[in-house]
């Protein structure tokens, strides 16, 4: 399953390019265009703005790597492939595991490209090896959360029309966090939303790892693991729903 999905992704430019290009656009636009933001009074992130934005784009790439895999699942249902697969599979949980592995590999490839560009653009990592393991483990957990969420949606609705139902919650979760400036510099309703958004903890912990100053590590891991755990149940419900019509 994982190989089939990865092969489809790599050989279909319409799928490959947006998933690679969008995070890159975000990174170049914000790291380049908004680099002056680190001069704003109150901006206190020592490694610099490129590193500050890298943490967000990393999180975005891992999350959307999962969401885009949900699109592939919906497409497989539309084409009839997923139904045939479900009839043939003895352990259907393996189907979901295959999609998740594909999502993880997609995210890893995207993150590798973004990291290479970020290093060229001046990524400044003050954290040590353990910090980096923490950072990328958070990314893996967010990827698992996203793919399981998208799987639940795709297996319940079984149509590409479900795209916005997968994409919009992920978009809101990510963008209602302190994306461009630290939480303390947020104002208005976005600050209120960020204060209750679980992605804020994950993002702040990720930035702490990059700065070599781990912060809110335990809450971030608890939140990320809880999101992934809840979506396991959600995806299992989706699988049951798909099984009923298979």
């Amino acid at each position: 399953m994982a190989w089939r999905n990865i092969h489809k992704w790599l050989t279909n430019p319409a799928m490959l390019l947006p998933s690679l290009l969008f995070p890159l656009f975000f990174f170049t636009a914000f790291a380049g265009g908004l680099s002056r933001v680190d001069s704003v009074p109150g901006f206190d992130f020592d490694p610099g703005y490129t590193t500050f934005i890298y943490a967000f784009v990393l999180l975005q790439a891992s999350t959307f790597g999962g969401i885009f895999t949900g699109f592939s699942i919906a497409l497989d249902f539309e084409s009839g492939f997923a139904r045939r697969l479900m009839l043939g599979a003895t352990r259907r949980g393996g189907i979901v595991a295959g999609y998740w592995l594909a999502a993880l590999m997609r995210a890893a490839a995207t993150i590798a490209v973004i990291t290479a560009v970020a290093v060229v653009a001046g990524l400044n990592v003050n954290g040590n090896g353990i910090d980096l393991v923490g950072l990328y483990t958070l990314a893996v957990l967010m990827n698992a959360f996203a793919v399981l969420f998208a799987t639940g949606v795709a297996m319940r609705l079984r149509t590409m029309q479900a795209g916005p139902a997968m994409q919009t919650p992920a978009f809101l979760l990510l963008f209602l966090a302190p994306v461009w400036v630290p939480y303390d510099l947020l104002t208005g309703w976005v600050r209120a939303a960020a204060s209750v958004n679980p992605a804020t903890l994950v993002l702040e912990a990720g930035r702490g790892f990059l700065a070599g100053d781990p912060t809110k590590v335990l809450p971030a891991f608890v939140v990320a693991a809880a999101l992934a755990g809840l979506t396991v149940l959600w995806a299992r419900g989706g699988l049951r729903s798909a099984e009923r019509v298979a």
Partner: protein
Amino acid sequence: MSRSSLLVQVGMLARRSVVRTLRQPAMVVPSLVFPLLLLAINSSGLESVTRLPGFPTDSYFQFALAIPFVQGALFSANSAGTNVANDIESGFLNRLSLTPLRRVALLMGQLAGILALGLIQALTFVAVGIAFGEGIQAGVPGALVIVALSLVISLAFGCIGAFVALRSGSGEAVQGVFPLFFAALFLSSMAIPRDLIEVHWFQTVADWNPVSYMLEGIRSLVIEGWNGEALALGFACAGGLALIALAGASSALRTRMVRA
């Protein structure tokens, strides 16, 4: 062929194009909702940027209000391209090529739906700017000029979408080009004025990017009042791009109709 006959042809195809566009909520709603959602998030998330010395306004909402107009036009490009590609894939264009319909009528008719969508977008974004911001500094005439510039921008991007569709004949190719349109928006003075961009290569790209001048034309009316240079550059970039893309689309249509 008489002028009135041409107008009848344009009118009939324009009516079909407008009805087809407005009957697809999936085409209209995202082109309004996503730019407004980003405006709401950006204006609150980046408010502290207005504290930078030299930032032209103390409200990021006012600064960012120009973005939805261009972003909406990018959706128009996608819609125009997808509509034309659908006509090619369904064989509608082939059947039209057997009639004495003129090329210019076909192209203008196809783009009418995009202009209708552009008008809805522009009026909505102006209304949001007035309702939630500090109004348009250039007043009611300025708001009308914003709508006019916005329509030219929609036409420009719509023509590019139509050009891609006519050259490739595939809706998938139009979707594939969509990220490039977004790159043009991101690599502009979208988030910060050009003179405040610190990274040299980014500033150079933004200086050469026509989207920067489209944004600055609209932005000048919102936060400054009347700025002849910004407006002239905005209209010149949008109009120039529209003319080039229209010529390209017309040439691609001629090739396609010969093939048909």
